[in-house]
């Protein structure tokens, strides 16, 4: 274990949470966020800001609160937990009652661990929600299918076979289809909950490449168990431990000289 005076052990969150400068464009921020499952507080003190067009990773052990935090960001916890505190998006607290949750999720989309394409054709997977929202213009729909698949780096592999069932695709392709489906709604922010953990290294690498392409246009927040993945692709990393964001900083700082001993121990594999 590292003996380093620079590492502090008091875990005082405020000192170790990165604050963006005046000029940074903040896409989403949380204030005094608390999540309760019944009486059980699963998350406290998750005050984080997410910079626009950057990839931010949330890392930590199972039960550390990182997924709970992520799911709160587009109110996936509404029916399972009580979420207190503010989640500010474009000056609006999306956690307030007046917000139309479905409309909000169009802006803040979520991709889950297991690829979950609909049992429909590749094309219908992408157009389904658009049609539901009343879009009928065939040319427009086709255009969106193409651009979404291109952005998700899947177009070249499926363009001749858009009528094929999505379920016939490989796991990695399915996951990229799900990403294409999410970005067809033109969200601002993409939340990803361990999007590559069910995939092999090659598919994982393709998803990572896709995310690096996507950050040109989207703000990305990703929960990952794979610390190497966080190190490889993200600009910022937040380390969660027992329901708190313990440390949040530029990824290269987190992985070369973290400030908090717990972070250091976690990323270097000195667990418990």
């Amino acid at each position: 274990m590292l003996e380093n005076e620079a590492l502090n052990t008091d875990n005082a969150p405020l000192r170790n949470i990165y604050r963006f400068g005046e000029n940074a464009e903040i896409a989403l921020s949380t204030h005094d966020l608390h999540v309760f499952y019944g009486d059980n507080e699963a998350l406290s003190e998750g005050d984080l800001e997410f910079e626009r067009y950057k990839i931010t990773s949330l890392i930590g052990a199972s039960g550390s609160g990182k997924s709970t935090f992520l799911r709160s960001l587009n109110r996936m916890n509404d029916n399972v937990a009580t979420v207190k505190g503010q989640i500010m998006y474009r000056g609006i607290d999306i956690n307030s009652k007046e917000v139309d949750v479905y409309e909000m999720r169009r802006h803040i989309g979520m991709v889950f661990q297991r690829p979950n394409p609909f049992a429909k054709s590749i094309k219908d997977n992408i157009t389904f929600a658009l049609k539901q929202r009343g879009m009928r213009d065939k040319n427009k729909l086709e255009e969106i299918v193409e651009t979404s698949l291109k952005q998700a780096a899947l177009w070249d592999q499926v363009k001749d076979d858009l009528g094929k069932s999505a379920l016939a695709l490989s796991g990695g392709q399915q996951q990229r289809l799900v990403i294409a489906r999410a970005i067809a709604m033109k969200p601002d922010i993409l939340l990803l909950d361990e999007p590559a953990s069910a995939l092999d290294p090659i598919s994982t690498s393709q998803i990572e490449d896709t995310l690096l392409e996507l950050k040109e246009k989207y703000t990305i927040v990703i929960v990952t168990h794979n610390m190497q993945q966080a190190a490889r692709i993200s600009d910022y990393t937040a380390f969660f431990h027992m329901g708190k964001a313990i440390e949040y900083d530029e990824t290269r700082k987190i992985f070369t000289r973290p400030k908090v001993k717990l972070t250091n121990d976690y990323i270097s594999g000195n667990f418990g």
Partner: protein
Amino acid sequence: MRRLFDEELADLDASFTEMGMLVSETIGKSVVAFVNHDRETALEIINSDEQINQREVAIEKKTFEMIALYQPVTIDLREIVTVLKAVSELERMGDHARDVAEATIRVKGTKRSASIEETIATMGEQTRQMVKDILGVYVNDDAQGASVIAANNLSVGQLSHQVRLDVITNIEKDSELATSGTDYLIVAGHLKRIADYVTNIAEWIVYKRTGKIVDLNPGNSSSFV
């Protein structure tokens, strides 16, 4: 997931080569200043050594980050390790160039020997050329070229030996040459060291290319002069 890593590796290579060029230029200038008794250029070299040191620190920091973020293996690891090792050799070369510059300031005003200074000039030119060549070999990943350049070390060693013999003969004939003679020995020693470091870099290039750690300078004396 190669893209970011490859970009950063290319940047690392570029910074290393740039630093190498700066060092090679400084070595060349330090020898020219010495034989031209050019105190001003010597001072300039002494003052610019900090720049070389800063570059070394920046490159080292970058390699640490790349190892922490990407956990490279095999060829990628060897490339980063090569930069990390070779950059220290470059930094030391810079220190020796600065020492030559310091000798330039010391020796000014004492009685000198044109013929020895000519030998030193030749030695300096050969050394500078070795540094330049090794950078080319590094860029081209040319293990064989690296071995060829390392072999030039022999010639620099012979010239250094020549300087030593000439200095002894000169001092025996004329004791007034003792002051400058001492500095000639020191400067020849610094140049010989620089050539030794080139050999070390050559060994790392071979490692990068083949994964084998070799000794390209077997049996050659690494004594100062």
